[in-house]
């Protein structure tokens, strides 16, 4: 059963996104500068990743601002499409960047070169990155606890990935710097970079396929919609106000949200009972469905 309680979470999400933007901007600039100065592939991969994070944080900030600013967007599948589009864009961008770094790593293995002297500055940068990642991830987990949404979920995954990736990058760069006098170390960073690139690409595929699935949502056919309305008739006496049904098909799953209100004195068990009756009726005709009752409050003009 679903209750519309996402407003505060989107406000918190906006704060986290704003902090991410603030932290990512100098990070993106620093990564690009250090990438040029050090010639480090890990920093290049990180620069691509940071740029992608910056894009996603920017989209997250704009969307969460929009979501909390206008009540009509709080539970709207149209907004879900925009979220999915944002995730799809940033994931697609990450694919392009990771592919470029992967190619550069393969090139470095074929034509190896010794690590550059500016790597110690890259280590300093990575230590700061790891500290910021820990702070942001803790704040994100605390503020969006219990709230669903593809963009919020992908943002949390992104922050976790940042922490892991920055830690690995710090380790790889530090080893490359400390053992720079050993000739074979020139292969260490490109190989580590290829491994990281493959892992990032694999993780990214989940985000991009999820976003693509959401973008391909379809409206249900008329016959199915009428069948769903028949299920509404089974709980007609239990509901005080009927404010509509929202349906969509995502992949093979059909999502159904019944927007109703109940009498003021209705107990939780009565509301739960109505939901279970509706859900059972829906499942009989549409086994691959996920239904929810969204309790709405409608203010009418006196």
């Amino acid at each position, binding site marked *: 059963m679903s209750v519309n309680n996402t407003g505060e979470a989107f406000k918190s999400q906006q704060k986290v996104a704003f902090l991410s933007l603030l932290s990512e901007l100098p990070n993106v600039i620093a990564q690009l500068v250090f990438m040029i100065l050090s010639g480090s592939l890990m920093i290049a991969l990180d620069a691509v990743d940071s740029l992608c994070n910056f894009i996603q944080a920017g989209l997250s900030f704009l969307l969460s601002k929009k979501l909390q600013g206008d009540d009509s967007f709080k539970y709207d599948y149209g907004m879900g499409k925009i979220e999915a589009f944002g995730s799809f864009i940033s994931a697609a961008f990450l694919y392009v960047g990771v592919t470029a770094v992967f190619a550069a790593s393969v090139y470095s293995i074929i034509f190896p070169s010794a690590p550059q002297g500016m790597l110690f500055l890259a280590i300093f940068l990575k230590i700061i990155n790891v500290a910021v990642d820990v702070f942001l991830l803790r704040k994100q987990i605390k503020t969006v606890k219990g709230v669903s949404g593809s963009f919020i979920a992908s943002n949390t995954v992104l922050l976790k990935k940042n922490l892991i990736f920055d830690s690995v990058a710090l380790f790889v760069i530090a080893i490359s710097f400390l053992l720079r006098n050993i000739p074979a170390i020139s292969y260490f960073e490109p190989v580590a970079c290829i491994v990281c690139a493959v892992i990032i690409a694999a993780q990214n595929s989940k985000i991009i396929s999820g976003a693509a699935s959401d973008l391909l949502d379809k409206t249900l056919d008329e016959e199915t919609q009428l069948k769903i309305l028949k299920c509404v008739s089974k709980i007609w006496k239990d509901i005080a106000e009927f404010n509509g049904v929202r349906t969509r098909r995502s992949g093979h799953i059909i999502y159904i949200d019944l927007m109703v209100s109940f009498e003021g004195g209705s107990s939780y068990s009565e509301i739960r009972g109505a939901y279970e009756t509706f859900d059972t009726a829906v499942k009989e005709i549409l086994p691959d469905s996920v239904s929810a009752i969204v309790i709405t409050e409608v203010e*009418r003009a006196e």
Partner: protein
Amino acid sequence: MEIAKTETAEKTTFALTGRLDTASSPAFQETLIPAFDEVKEITVDFANLAYISSAGLRVLLMGEKTAKSKGAALIIVNVSAEIMEIFEMTGFSQILTIL
């Protein structure tokens, strides 16, 4: 779809012509629901209604609940056999007042 409104002191009649579907349902909803603030009986004449979709049916369900909450009545008249079949199929022939 066209909505023709006829008013008397006690009741309002909306005569629908054309198709009550996804495109026309929002306009009908905006006309029907606020009307319960003014009168206690609203009749919707389906004599010239060729088709009703699930979106149109949803507006009638909203109207029925609104009527009940305001102590008013929503009456649907001149329903064709095709539309009656939809009401029966969805189980709402037992809920809506159809004359």
